[in-house]
């Protein structure tokens, strides 16, 4: 046995692999670290001190962004939009998917394939027509209008994910519920929804990311500072503080950290959602 030779090769190989992976990992983390670092500096020190860890940490920028920069309002709005849109998507798409999977009515397949087709056809410019429509409906500068638009964005994929899951639900479960006197709504709520819990987690996390990070529709539809979500607010804030980098970085940190924390806790579901067969088509 040439144990030593193999051992040597194994060590070199895994060292090289680690060097490769680690350098990419540092490239990933550094800009984020730099953002957080600069958020703790002042306008006087940020141009002078280029050390990795600043000598003096200053928390004032967060206070400025929070009050003067309206971040308290933006953050609250983002939470409101995310919660409303995601709740809406879960209820509306699971109801539809349950019907597509287990119930029958004329034209069912046509409607289902419309949803599937909507997922396949990219509509990069439909925001023009959407804006025209929203103006006509007086839903510009309205929380309700923005929420409805965003529910539509997540609908197709969520219906597809729910439907593939409901298709796998054993018939016996349903029959048992029916014998116990459950109606259709009862079966959906008491059997199908608890059964779909894993897929609900995926849908919640994915749509939360989408809503939290959405910018284009927010820019078009919400011009009132009191209604703006974080992403939109940052852009306004950036326009007003374009040279005050530490305050800007504090604002960016406040927008980025919640999503990173949520991701760290939910990363299992994110990976599952990304790689599920439904998404892979």
């Amino acid at each position, binding site marked *: 046995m040439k144990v030593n030779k193999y051992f040597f090769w194994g060590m070199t190989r895994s060292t090289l692999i680690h060097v490769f992976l680690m350098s990419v990992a540092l490239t990933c*983390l550094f800009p984020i670290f730099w953002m957080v670092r600069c958020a703790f500096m002042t306008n006087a020190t940020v141009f002078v001190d280029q050390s990795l860890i600043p000598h003096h940490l200053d928390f004032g920028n967060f206070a400025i962004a929070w009050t003067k920069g309206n971040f308290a309002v933006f953050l609250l709005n983002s939470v409101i939009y995310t919660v409303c849109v995601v709740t809406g998507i879960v209820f509306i798409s699971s109801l539809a998917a349950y019907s597509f999977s287990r119930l029958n009515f004329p034209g069912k397949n046509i409607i289902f394939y419309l949803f599937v087709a909507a997922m396949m056809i990219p509509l990069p410019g439909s925001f023009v027509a959407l804006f025209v429509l929203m103006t006509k409906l007086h839903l510009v500068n309205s929380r309700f209008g923005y929420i409805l638009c965003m529910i539509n964005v997540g609908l197709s994929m969520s219906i597809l994910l729910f439907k593939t899951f409901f298709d796998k639900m054993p018939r016996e479960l349903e029959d048992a519920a029916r014998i116990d006197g459950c109606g259709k709504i009862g079966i959906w709520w008491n059997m199908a929804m608890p059964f779909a819990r894993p897929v609900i987690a995926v849908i919640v996390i994915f749509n939360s990311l989408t809503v939290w990070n959405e910018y284009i529709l927010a820019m078009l539809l919400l011009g009132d500072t009191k209604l703006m979500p974080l992403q939109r607010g940052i852009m306004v804030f950036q326009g007003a503080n374009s040279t005050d980098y530490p305050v800007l970085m504090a604002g960016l940190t406040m927008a980025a950290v919640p999503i990173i924390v949520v991701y760290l806790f939910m*990363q299992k579901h994110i990976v599952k959602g990304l790689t599920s067969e439904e998404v892979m088509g």
Partner: protein
Amino acid sequence: MDHKDKATAIFKDNLQNFLFVLPAFAIFCVFYIYPFYKMINLSFYDWRGIGPMHFIGLANYKELMGDNLWWNSMWHAGYITLIALVFQNPLAFALALACDQQIRMKRFYRVVFFIPPVLSQLVVGLIWNWILNPEMQNGQHIGFLNHFLYSSGFPQLVHDWLGDPKTALTTIAIVNSWQGFGWGFIMFLAGLQTIDKQLYEAARIDGASAWKTFTNITMPMMLPVILVVIILTILGCMQVFVLILALVNEGLVNHTDVPVTRIFSAMQNTNRFGYACAEAVIFGTILVCVSFITKRVSDKAKQA
């Protein structure tokens, strides 16, 4: 009488079943199907957003065919996509291969690589805008990259990366790849993990080299995943917009604009809603065609 009752019951049953779908279908009709129709419809009109609409047939499309700014923007997006296909995806694949080995800290790498994709394009763009800042203050470079290049002995490399028309687009493409590779990595890694380890074992016993194993087992098994990643990369990169908005704002309009920027400015800056819709229709059609062709080509490749 009996027969009529039964028909009513069936009708009621169907109606109930349809009511489950109704909320989703209603939202879908109002916010997807109607804008879809309206987009195509408006593209035949000359309309300023308010006031009278003039039907002008295909005039918007004719103008679009000769609009150099528009086709330039298409080329810009194509360039960003090309960089992603050539550098970002192979890098993601290499990282996935490295992470598929039996090594330590696998979980750490997996978590870290996916952090950039969960951030919004806006946040990523503004962070990089600050790092790439070209200005100087009191004789010091205030942007990290230029400061780093200067102090580590490469003062000749100090550059206004986003301000110079020659480097701006490439810089944008690199930032775009920085944000996007983690997502391809996750898809590739999941694909690699579904490959039966016994196949590798059998190849090893047959004395196949690492390269042979890679080309004869790994690549064919990964082809479907690679295809999905390629199509999603094309669709994603062609539509990049917010990242560019955050990186250069209105800075270098004619050197860094992409189709979505053009659609936006036709609508917001010049109030030409009809023209914006014509651009949107052409752009959407091109995207559908490109992903369709990619799929056909790779289906052919799979058979061969």
